[in-house]
């Protein structure tokens, strides 16, 4: 059961990574990151079956932090939208070189 959970977690994590790499919309990108975090959460939960509650405690922390991050992140995306009228990351390249 542990191995399957970890495999699923890895799969989800990979899906998240691939999403980040391929998508161009800031919000979707952010969603993919959230997917990665939750994949890790799955691992933690699975592992805590072996190692005790530490992993589950960690999951609570991660969820809390992810919520805070989501709040800040969405605010940032709104801020950029106000400037560029777009959240397409292809358009956002003032800073380069």
């Amino acid at each position, binding site marked *: 059961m542990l191995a399957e959970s970890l495999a699923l977690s890895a799969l989800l994590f990979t899906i998240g*990574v691939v999403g*980040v*790499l391929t998508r*161009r919309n800031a919000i979707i*990108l952010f969603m993919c990151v959230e997917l990665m975090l939750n994949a890790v959460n799955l691992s933690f939960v699975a592992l805590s079956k072996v190692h005790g509650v530490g992993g589950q405690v960690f999951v609570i922390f991660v969820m809390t932090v992810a919520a805070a991050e989501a709040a800040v992140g969405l605010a940032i995306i709104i801020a950029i939208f106000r400037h560029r009228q777009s959240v397409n*990351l*292809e358009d*956002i*390249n*003032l*800073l*380069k*070189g």
Partner: protein
Amino acid sequence: MQTEPLATGHPLADTIARFAWLIPVFPLVGFVLNGLLSLRAAGHPGPADPSAGGHGHDGHHRGTGGTGDGHADHGHDDGHHAARHPAAALVSLIGPGVLALSFAMTLAILYQVWVVDNALREPYVLTLFSWMPAGKLSVDAAFQIDQLSLVMMSIVTGIGTLIHIFSVGYMQDDPGYPRYFAYLNLFIFFMLLLVMGSSYPLMFVGWEGVGLCSYLLIGFWFSDKANADAGKKAFIVNRIGDFGFLVAMFLMFANFGTLTFAGVGEAAMGAQLGGALVTAICLFLFLGATGKSAQIPLFVWLPDAMAGPTPVSALIHAATMVTAGVYLIARSAVLFSMAPVAQLTVAVVGALTAVFAATIGLKQWDIKKVLAYSTVSQLGYMFVGVGVGAYSAGVFHLMTHAFFKALLFLGSGSVIYAMHKAYHATHSHEDAQDMRNMGGLRKHMPVTFVLMWIATLSIAGIPPFSGFFSKDEILASVFARTHGSTLAEAHWLGIPGSVVLYGVYVLGLAAALMTAIYMTRMMLYTFHGPNRTGEKEAAHLKEAPWIMTGPLVVLGVLSAVGGFVNMPALYAGEYSEQLHAWLEPVLAEGTGITLGEEGLHLSHATEWTLIAIAIAIAAIGIAIAWTRLKPEALVAAKDAKAEEGIEKTLLHKWYVDEAYDKTVVKPTLGISRTLLWKGIDTGIIDGLLVNGSALVVRAVGWAGSQLQSGRVGTYAWVLLIGVLSVLSAFSFR
């Protein structure tokens, strides 16, 4: 400063000889005083400023063409005939004065040598201070007084004094008058160092120093590029020789551990006869000598050196400096005698130079050029002498040559002086040194005419003039050594030594023949026949003042009778070979090695035959020139046709300068500029390696910054590359 431990107990130590260091110091003082006077005047621009009207006479001078003396131009063009240097009187006193003091001092020492018993069985070495002590090397500033150096000192100071006096008249109107005497005094100082130094390094100081003064004096009228070029050429060519001198010293120090004459001589005695080491040392020394004494292949600077004032040519480029190479070999007599192959080289090169230069002398029009090639040729003679181990004969010819060649140069100076005055009076721009512009001068300059003939007969080898004795002795020595000497037994480039010596002898005769021809030619064109100077100008031709002709007379006497100091034993009886005897303590050892235990003696018959041949050759030469050359047919330089064929080749000195230029100078400059500087320096090192690597780094940086596209997607991909690399590094350890 340490006092001389070596000299204590020497018979001369308590005599005036212990002040011998004053001899070079006098001219040094003269140099300093004259130099200061020259600068002082320069520093205070006034009516007598040397550069006043400098422009005008530059232009004028170029107009005269060639490398001629431009002395009369200087300071005259603006019409101020009284534009003598403000300090001229003082300079006229100091310049020759210090020389006279040195000469007097030299005579005083000579006198002491005469009166003190066994005064110079051993050389008297006067150590002043330690010059370059480093490790095992110890070079002292020390003078060596012996018979050889005394002869040289006498020539240098004696002839030097005469030429200084002559210069007072010759240079009187030159704006650079104090500078001239400063240089001249400095030259004498270095020349005395050269002949008095007790070790090779000290001699080298003088060696280089005279080269330096020669450079300064050749380029004395530096405003003309040709003069400055000639000075530079002299110095650089001499430096090639100096390189040889240096290497010879390295070899001596590395193998003998000492550089003093005494030490090296002693060590050389213990070396292997004909061994590679002594041969190498001698050949390198000879390379030095070819530079200073203008022998093949380094003779090219001397003719150009005639660009200097004529008294300079007389003093430096005839009487003293150029003979330094001969002196060097005589000094190293033992060393050379231990290396017969090197000796033969010296003799062959000397003989070849004698002939080669004589051929060129046949076709020169510039009176000083004739004398210059004559000098080269006569120096070749001297080398033949010292080359075959007849060191005293070489020195003898050195001495007589100093007399008659100084006379010839000063005489020609007189002529040029007169020509200049004449052309100047009529504002003509003709060449005052071209013999085609002279002719018939005997009417105008009788004293000079007579004296010059004495010198000519002397150099041609007509008895009883001095040149006859010295030249004859050299030729006889060569002949004598064809059998039984170490030279005859040695092989030179595979040729038996005796064959080589016969060849040398024949070459010597050939050179003697040509010498007689070109000297007679010079006299004919200059003093005989009709005058070609121009009608107006001829009226202004007149004898030089007595301050100039005076020294000429003295030299004339010396040229005439100077040979008597070393007449052959054949007919002179108890008065024979006095110079030879005098020099014996210094040179006998070397000669002895060459000749063997009991020496070599020619039969009287042979000797008489040789003398007859020599006289005949000289007489034939004069006769050829006298009968074949027609001064009447000559036209002035401006109307002359260009030469053709062999004459052109001779006039252009066999195109040696051009050949050197093409094979050495141009390639060196070309390689330096295109290959080394532009190629390696700015091309490979700077361009490719330094700036190239900087460029590569910058290019990579630019590429990197292009990757920084500003797009989050790119960044994520790069990040992923990192992730994969790290993970694979962790997985596949």
